[in-house]
């Protein structure tokens, strides 16, 4: 369904089996499938966690939290059952990578869940997919059924004496459910309202039991780490940023697509070399490097390494791996309005700063873009956004605020060009380009 692309600079780890028919269990086995989980069984829980710690694997959902450390927070002894939850609620605008993993390598996700379960002592794993990904849910359901049929999951897996069940679960349309505590609420059959933390899910998670929640790409990386070794994986990337990452290149590019590149790959090269540069006749205006919730970078800020720490230093975030490239025919106010409209739509309304803040920002930006803006709107927008930061249970409020603040900081003149009832000067340029 989704088209595959490739580039010589790619280092294929997670995408190694893409396009190779690995949805079929026998083919997956030929391609080293289910070897990692058997190795993990022989290693034991502590050694698995240490290997993942050594690998410097960090959460691919967006937050970049060290995976091994996350697993080590789960208490060894627990009166309540422990769980592993795979987050496949991929919904961050600009992000379309987990889709490819589910489509091309579903057993790798299962194997990742199994290894995580062995590491923390969980007996059940859930793979949650967003409701829109129905065709992928069907692929995952078949993969799980096939693995059960072979006895790879279920009772006494690979003769280890460990029982392990894995189930798939569908969402029904909600961005916020991608946040881990809201995800648990949704799986429990409730509205996806975030939970207050602490306690963290590693201690009190699904149905009150200790729970490990990892993004699908994170879990799909784990079998490769177990087979190849933590050190090998760590060395693919930069210090404290192990491995590779699926980068989703979108916008007016010659060759948009999902590319697997080493952590720390240069952003500028990613755009001009890997993705073939801007579409003919368009110039670069800015880059949103990690899904729509992160700060924008201007063209002179993109000569930077794409890893969690370098992006933080550059004033943005690596986020979900969704690299959204803006061309010069996109009005920044229009863009801000679309981003804000999204977060306003997805805000669950639980926390007032987010519920009211996104709504006011949307109203202001709508009026502003239509030519009804006044000078103080610009600072008001920034003030609104700044007062949402850090004042909500889940990061949706931050996700709505951070980008808008950066648009105003970096493209203030473009906002000012919309003042005094003038029609948007940027979209006119776009229209003129369309006609010519």
């Amino acid at each position: 369904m989704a088209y595959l692309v490739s580039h010589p600079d790619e280092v294929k780890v997670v995408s190694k089996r893409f396009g190779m028919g690995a949805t079929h269990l026998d083919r997956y086995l030929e391609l080293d499938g289910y070897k990692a989980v058997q190795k993990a069984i022989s290693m034991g829980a502590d050694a698995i966690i240490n290997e993942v710690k050594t690998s410097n694997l960090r959460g691919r959902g967006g937050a970049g939290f060290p995976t091994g450390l996350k697993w080590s927070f789960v208490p060894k002894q627990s009166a309540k059952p422990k769980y592993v939850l795979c987050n496949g609620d991929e919904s961050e605008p600009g992000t379309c990578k987990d889709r490819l993993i589910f489509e091309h390598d579903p057993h790798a996700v299962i194997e990742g869940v199994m290894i995580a379960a062995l590491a923390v002592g969980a007996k059940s794993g859930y793979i949650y997919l967003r409701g829109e990904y129905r065709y992928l849910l069907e692929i995952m359901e078949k993969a799980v059924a096939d693995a059960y049929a072979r006895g790879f999951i279920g009772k006494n897996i690979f003769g280890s004496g460990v029982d392990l069940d894995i189930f798939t679960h569908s969402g029904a349309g909600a961005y916020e459910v991608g946040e881990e505590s809201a995800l648990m609420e949704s799986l429990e059959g409730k509205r996806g309202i975030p939970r207050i933390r602490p306690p963290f899910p590693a201690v009190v998670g699904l149905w009150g039991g200790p729970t490990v929640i990892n993004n699908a790409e994170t879990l799909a990386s784990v079998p490769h780490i177990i087979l190849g070794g933590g050190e090998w994986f760590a060395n693919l990337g930069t210090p404290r940023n192990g491995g590779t990452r699926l980068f989703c290149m979108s916008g007016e590019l010659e060759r948009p697509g999902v590319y697997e590149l080493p952590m720390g790959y240069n952003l500028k090269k990613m755009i001009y070399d890997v993705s073939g540069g801007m579409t003919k006749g368009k110039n670069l205006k800015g880059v949103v490097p990690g899904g729509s919730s992160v700060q924008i970078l201007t063209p002179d800020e993109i000569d930077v390494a794409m890893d969690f720490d370098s992006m933080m230093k550059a004033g943005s975030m690596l986020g979900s791996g969704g690299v959204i490239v803006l061309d010069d025919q996109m009005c920044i106010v229009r863009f801000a309005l679309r981003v804000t409209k999204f977060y306003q739509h997805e805000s669950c309304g639980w926390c007032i700063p987010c519920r009211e803040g996104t709504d006011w920002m949307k109203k202001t930006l709508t009026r502003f873009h239509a030519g009804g803006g006044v000078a103080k709107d610009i600072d008001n927008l920034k003030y609104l956004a700044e007062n949402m930061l850090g004042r909500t249970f889940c990061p949706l409020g931050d996700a709505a605020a951070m980008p808008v603040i950066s648009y105003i900081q970096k493209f203030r003149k473009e906002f000012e060009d919309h003042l005094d009832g003038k029609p948007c000067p940027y979209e006119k340029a776009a229209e003129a380009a369309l006609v010519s």
Partner: protein
Amino acid sequence: MKFSDQLEQRFATMVTHYPTKRSVLVPMLLYIQDELGAVTDEAIHEIAQRTELTDLEVRNVISYYSMLRTRPVGKYNLQVCTNVSCLLRGADDIFEHCKKKLGIGNKESTPDGLFHLEEVECIGACSWAPALMMNYEFHENLTPAKIDELIDGLKKKEEQ
């Protein structure tokens, strides 16, 4: 309301997957909707009883999820993404073209009940933008011509 055999089987299997009954709720509501076109009052009552919830508690969950609806829409639901990656590649024009082609606006159905049109948030097709979903089917790298082809094709299929 009586569940179809398929729903009955789904429910019987899924309810064994979780320690609480209500955990089946979100996916079950979607499966119900797939069959009935909407989560009807009768269906709400049925699932509420099965999960030991009140009808109101079920409605409370339904209202949170954007894919769930309590009234049916046109048979072919065209959900056009207009979020940023699609916006950058002309999603607004694509959406306008759909409106014109079908003669309906956002969240409206054609009088014959065949088509429904909806502007939706990111569907995860960013690298293949602009994109839409027709029911659960992804259509990507859209052009007005591709949309005409899709809609005309569906119309033809219905005439046969």
